[in-house]
């Protein structure tokens, strides 16, 4: 990041900018007290918060949606890990623990980023992991007693997370550090999603599943649990990118399946929210 030149240009554009970044002692104090080294570039966003409100609002809203998704996942994995007899074996437990720990770090990072931008992180709602809008009797009623259901929901949550970050990225373009952080979280969600798909294969829940999405097929058996997740997978069958038909592109042997797998699709904020909504108690 070219700090020197950015500050110079900002000062030229906004002569009062110099006053906003003082008193310097307070800014420096915040850096050492509350900001981890890894989040240091993000804290610089706080220097701009008062001058660029409107763009910042979009960024904060986008991050708050991401925060909701992270909160959902952390609580979900925590509850699963605390449920004796749910997770099948030590290796699976270690992997779910890793995912939980990663999501916990993401939740903190997203929350800290919102704060550094002068925003208010949303509060954590109560979750209903059965997908029953608070009834506790949704289509995933056995989510913490049936490992098959649990891993399928985990796959769905991570897939929704990937598509949420992907869809939200353009909203973050005005802040390089925030965009970069979001992209660096996004790819980890994809790692999680791929791994969970292979866990489902390894546990015999879905025998022909792959670590990538083929033609929007979640490899969940037909029924209410598959139907309830439809919004998370819809659109992944897409095989046209920027006007290019990917099937057989360039005269190469790229099948419809491969063409759909090769690109993951974004979701809009409204779609992400609709997917999460059944799991949030109003």
């Amino acid at each position, binding site marked *: *990041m*070219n700090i*020197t*030149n950015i500050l110079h*240009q900002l000062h030229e554009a906004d002569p009062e900018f110099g006053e906003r970044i003082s008193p310097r002692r307070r800014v420096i104090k915040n850096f050492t007290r509350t900001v*981890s080294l*890894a*989040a240091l570039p993000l804290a610089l966003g706080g220097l701009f918060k008062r001058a660029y409100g409107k763009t910042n609002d979009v960024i904060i809203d986008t991050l708050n949606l991401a925060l909701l998704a992270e909160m959902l996942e952390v609580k979900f994995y925590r509850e699963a890990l605390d449920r004796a007899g749910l997770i099948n074996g030590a290796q699976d437990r270690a*992997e779910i623990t*890793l995912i939980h*720990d*990663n999501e916990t*770090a*993401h939740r*903190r*990072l997203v929350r800290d980023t919102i704060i550094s931008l002068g925003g208010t992180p949303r509060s954590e709602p109560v979750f209903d992991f059965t997908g029953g809008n608070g009834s506790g009797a949704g289509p995933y009623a056995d989510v913490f007693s049936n490992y098959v259901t649990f891993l399928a929901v985990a796959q769905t949550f991570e897939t929704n997370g*990937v598509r949420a*970050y*992907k869809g939200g*990225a*353009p909203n973050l*373009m005005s802040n*390089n*550090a925030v*965009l*970069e*952080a979001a*992209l*660096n*979280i*996004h*790819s*980890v*969600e*994809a*790692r*999680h*999603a*791929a*791994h969970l798909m292979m866990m489902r294969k390894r546990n015999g829940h879905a025998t022909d599943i*792959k*670590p*990538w999405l083929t033609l929007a097929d979640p490899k969940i058996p037909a029924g209410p649990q598959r139907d309830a997740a439809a919004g998370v997978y819809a659109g992944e069958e897409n095989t046209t*990118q*920027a006007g*290019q038909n*990917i099937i057989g*592109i*360039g005269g*190469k042997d*790229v*099948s419809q399946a*491969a*063409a759909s*797998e*090769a*690109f*993951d*699709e*974004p979701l809009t904020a409204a779609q992400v929210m609709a997917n999460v909504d059944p799991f949030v108690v109003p």
Partner: protein
Amino acid sequence: MNNTNTDLLKAAAGGAGLRLQGGYSRRRFLGFAGLLAGAGFLSLQACNNDDDTTPGPTDNGVNLGSGDTGILNYAYALEQLEAAFYTEVLRNPYTGLTGTNEEAMLRDIRDHEVAHREFFKAALGSNAIPDLEVDFSSITFSSRDSVLAAAREMEDLGVQAYNGAGKLLTSADNLTIAGKIVSVEARHAAYIRDLIQPGSFADTSILDPTNRIDVSKTPTQVLQAADKYIVTTINATALPTE
């Protein structure tokens, strides 16, 4: 430079030129020296305003170009590398690969990388760089360990490259395309890592230990890491740096 012209002639002859073990020595230091001289140490200079540097072969290596075009060519270069690698893996399968599900997955990965490569080629049109000459002589294709280690390296590097390039793009459409691809590379990376070491799909051997996020790299860093596999001199000096 005679060797650069030779490389370009090879590239122009069609198809990514491929060097495997037993080939003649590379002069990769010349390519990298070009990179350092131009792009390495700009941190205290004024921001470059884009001068439309035309992408394509020049006397100083293949120029990726500037602006979004430069970044797309950069992505195209990496996809060329990956597609060539997996094509070779399947053409020359390691012991124990043939007929397995693992082979089917590597074939999928190959197809994805080909799709990515061809997408960029089509999207860039006349701005696309030519086919790069690659060098996999450092990989033992008969060895699963050697091949998977190289695959892991390339996939993780691809994730880091796309993640670092996102902020350099100016078009939201281009950012979305990059986003659609990087998550697939991350899926690849997770799969390969788990083959090598079960459970390592997203651990702190690759993620930042505090924030548990991927550690994005700059184009300079990525091209430096990929340099051992790419013979063609790549000129990245016109790429955006912020």
